[in-house]
């Protein structure tokens, strides 16, 4: 939930000494290229964003977006399996990739004089991936291990998986990004190939480069390497709109754990028009009022004053291709029931709807927005990431400045209004982790309890 603060971003209340410039061009094959110069360090970041994430998957093949991401490191005609990573490493670079509900992105960070290598290799695997069955057979096992590590063995991760599958009745956001285990078990290399052919085309991709670079040179390289890749028609995207929720939903997850967790998720609007919309900005400010700092309402009330919970938080992220949610969650303290804590979370929402927020609270959240705008410029990677996320979500990244102005303009009445409109039971899903005893018992751990801190 703290991610929210990172997402809040920037505005120019005072002049920034390093005013980065952004240059953009669309290649004839439809690929967008966006270059942001930042000369603080002799480093460059390259990110290739594909507008294809788990929300574009179908039943029976969930997880294929992420599996293809793994396979993108498994060789092209010119660059054998594993070589991509080796060549970037030899150039002193760091590289990886990530898949989300909305997109798949591949990135490298390198010394500025090695950037060309990254662009050349990315262009190669956009067009020439081999997808060998024997590589797929090994890699699908790696992905299943990843799912075991992230989800199967984590009661909390299972809770959020169940929450998403309940909030959304038809929209593909109900599927986990990593896919359901059964779909992974039955996945074939042809599923991966089909995905690659469907989405990996320059007209469905955006290259974002940030760093100490010459934009004209980057554009020249982009044309040289990505330019020759022919555009292909991008598959039709069905709207798959989530129907109006018609009443509160509930789900319980029973899994080995010690503490219960209660999570509340309300369906909420996403940011669609950065100029005209105001509700998403008010929801962001609302999340800040509830959980922007250690004395924000939820922690102050549930954890510090009433001592009902050991943790409590809230969050909202309006930058997405699909429907958004407003989430609040808490871990009941020893001796407190889930029902009590759920009621306390809802009571804080009710207080907001009834009494609104004070100007002091509002200004405090806005001060954090302002500072966050400066702080985020310390990370080259994050700057590129924000451009990529906005673009892939169908938003004009240039509207980010508008967004900061709009966040600053949010009024106390607007915060109250969005709470009253969206944080209502008919839009709510409640997910509860019901902790179960450890199946193997607690043999030696009972005397010698295991701790949270460790040397790493």
């Amino acid at each position, binding site marked *: 939930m703290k991610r929210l603060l990172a997402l809040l971003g920037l505005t120019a209340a*005072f002049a*920034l*000494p*390093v005013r980065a410039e952004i240059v953009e061009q669309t290649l004839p094959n439809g690929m967008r290229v966006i270059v942001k110069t930042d000369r*603080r*360090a*002799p*480093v460059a970041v390259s990110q290739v964003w594909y507008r294809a994430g788990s929300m574009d998957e179908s039943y029976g093949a969930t997880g294929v977006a992420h599996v293809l991401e793994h396979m993108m490191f498994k060789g092209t005609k010119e660059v054998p399996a594993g070589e991509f990573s*080796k060549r970037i*490493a030899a150039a*002193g*670079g760091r590289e990886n990739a990530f898949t989300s509900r909305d997109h798949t992105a591949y990135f490298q960070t*390198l*010394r500025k004089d090695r950037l060309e290598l990254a662009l050349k290799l990315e262009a190669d695997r956009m067009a020439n991936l081999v997808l060998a069955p024997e590589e797929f057979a090994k890699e699908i*096992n*790696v*992905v*299943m*291990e*990843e799912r075991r*590590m992230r989800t*199967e*063995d*984590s009661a909390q991760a299972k809770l959020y998986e169940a929450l998403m599958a309940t909030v959304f009745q038809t929209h593909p956001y109900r599927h986990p990004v990593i896919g359901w285990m059964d779909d992974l078990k039955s996945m074939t290399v042809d599923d991966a190939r089909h995905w690659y052919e469907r989405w990996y085309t320059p007209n469905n991709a955006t290259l974002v480069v940030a760093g100490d670079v010459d934009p004209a040179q980057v554009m020249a390289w982009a044309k040289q390497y990505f330019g020759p890749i022919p555009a292909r028609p991008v598959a039709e995207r069905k709207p798959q709109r989530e129907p109006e929720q018609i009443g509160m939903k509930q789900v319980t997850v029973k899994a*080995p*754990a*010690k*503490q219960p967790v209660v999570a509340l998720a309300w369906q909420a609007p996403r940011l669609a028009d950065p100029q005209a919309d105001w509700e998403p900005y008010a929801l962001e400010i609302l999340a800040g009022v509830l959980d922007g*700092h250690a*004395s*924000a309402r939820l922690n102050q009330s549930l*954890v510090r004053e009433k001592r009902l919970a*050991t943790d409590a938080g809230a969050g909202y992220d309006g930058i997405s291709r699909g429907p958004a949610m407003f989430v609040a969650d808490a*871990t009941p*303290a*020893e001796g407190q029931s889930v029902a009590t804590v759920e009621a306390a979370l809802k009571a804080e929402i009710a207080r907001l709807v009834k009494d609104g927020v004070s100007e002091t609270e509002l*200004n*405090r959240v806005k*001060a954090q*927005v302002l*500072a966050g705008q*400066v*702080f985020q*410029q310390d*990370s*080259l990677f994050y700057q590129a990431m924000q451009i990529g996320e906005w673009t892939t979500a169908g938003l004009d990244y240039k509207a980010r400045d508008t967004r900061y102005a709009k966040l600053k303009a949010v009024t106390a009445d607007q915060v109250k209004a969005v709470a009253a409109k969206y944080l209502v039971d008919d839009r709510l899903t409640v997910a509860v982790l019901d902790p179960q005893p450890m*199946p*193997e018992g607690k*043999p*030696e*751990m009972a005397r*010698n*309890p*295991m*701790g*949270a*801190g*460790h*040397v*790493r």
Partner: protein
Amino acid sequence: MSAKTLFALLFALLVSPAVWAGLNIQHWTTPQGARVYFVENHDLPMLDVSVDFSAGGARDSRQKSGLANLTRHVMGLGAGDYSERDIAEKLADVGAVMSGRLDADRAGFSLRTLSGKAERGQALSLLGAILSAPRFDAAILEREKARVIAGLEEAATKPETIGAKAFQTALYGDHPYALDESGEVDSVRGLSRDDLVAFHRDHYRAKNMVVALMGDISRQEAEQLAAELAAGLPPGEAPPPIPPVSPADQGMERVIPHHATQSHLFMGLPGLKREDPDYFALYVGNYVLGGGGFDSRLTESIRQKKGLAYSVYSYFMPMEQMGPFQIGLQTRRDATREAVDTARAELARFLEEGPSEAELAQARNNLIGGFPLRIDSNKKILEYLAVIGFYRLPLDWLDTYSAKVDAVTRDDILRAFRARVRPEAMMTVIVGGQLESPAK
């Protein structure tokens, strides 16, 4: 000037001057005895500050383990004129972000603030109060003890923390590095306000403090700011060094049953100090064994060739005294033995033949070529300042880094690995599905 220094200078000048133009680390000691490390940079209107004390988990006793952690944590929850609510609100009012950290060696705070006089002044006055005048409110202490205990109980269900803890115990026995920094349920329950007050008085002293500053202030402002932070601290000397580690001669294997779908492996032994003549040989060598991600042998044999794990790695964790060398992985239950055996075989092969010249070249290229990425943000530079200061590394540590990596030979790596990573002394902890007795 030694030949090595001369070489480093030549190397720095010849290879890529642009990359090296960078860090001018300024260092001084405040009148109260705090050591200060400062890099001035005005690119962004912000300031990063960290303060660290030799007041980590290794300062705990077994009976009161968790005391160092709780002291540092509760310090931030009410100090001087400020209630815990005031602290959070006044930080937020100026957009500042404060966080705490603690490991076995170090305890401290870091603060990120806008560099305007009003913003940084307010944020730093809060940090000053937290360091010098913590309230240790009894009711807040009880509440936070309950939260720590809840965290310990939840962690005790998770295979990764069960294994890490058993591994730490196996490596360090009676040494304070064996203690869980968060403490134990019983030890935390027994901690009193007096314990925290005494721990603070004995450890949070100017002569035990390292201040790192990075960002948009002048040297003069930095001097004043550091002096003010140190001014209110109790007098007295820094605590004595942490006692040396005596590694066991004989290793062992321990299997802890767990229901998880994956088994977790922890294998290793005490391996490396922060100031250690073999630091670079072990660091570069480990890149080839299991530190270099997809460049490493462990990833190649266990993930790439066999598909047995998503994550497999090895690392040396340099600490004031010998920190751990560890090989780790997670794999499905029925593959446990195969994965563990493969990891052991890779380690044996590495100890036998060391890296090839090609592997060593690849490691050098990555570590040297990637050097600019290590200092490309204020946050990363602050972290280096804090480490250089706390462990009293030479001020030119970053300047000589690439030359030292470049100088490492295959023989250096083999000799250093064979001296430190003794197979007969390896401790192995497996949490999960390998339920039958260990092989021997």
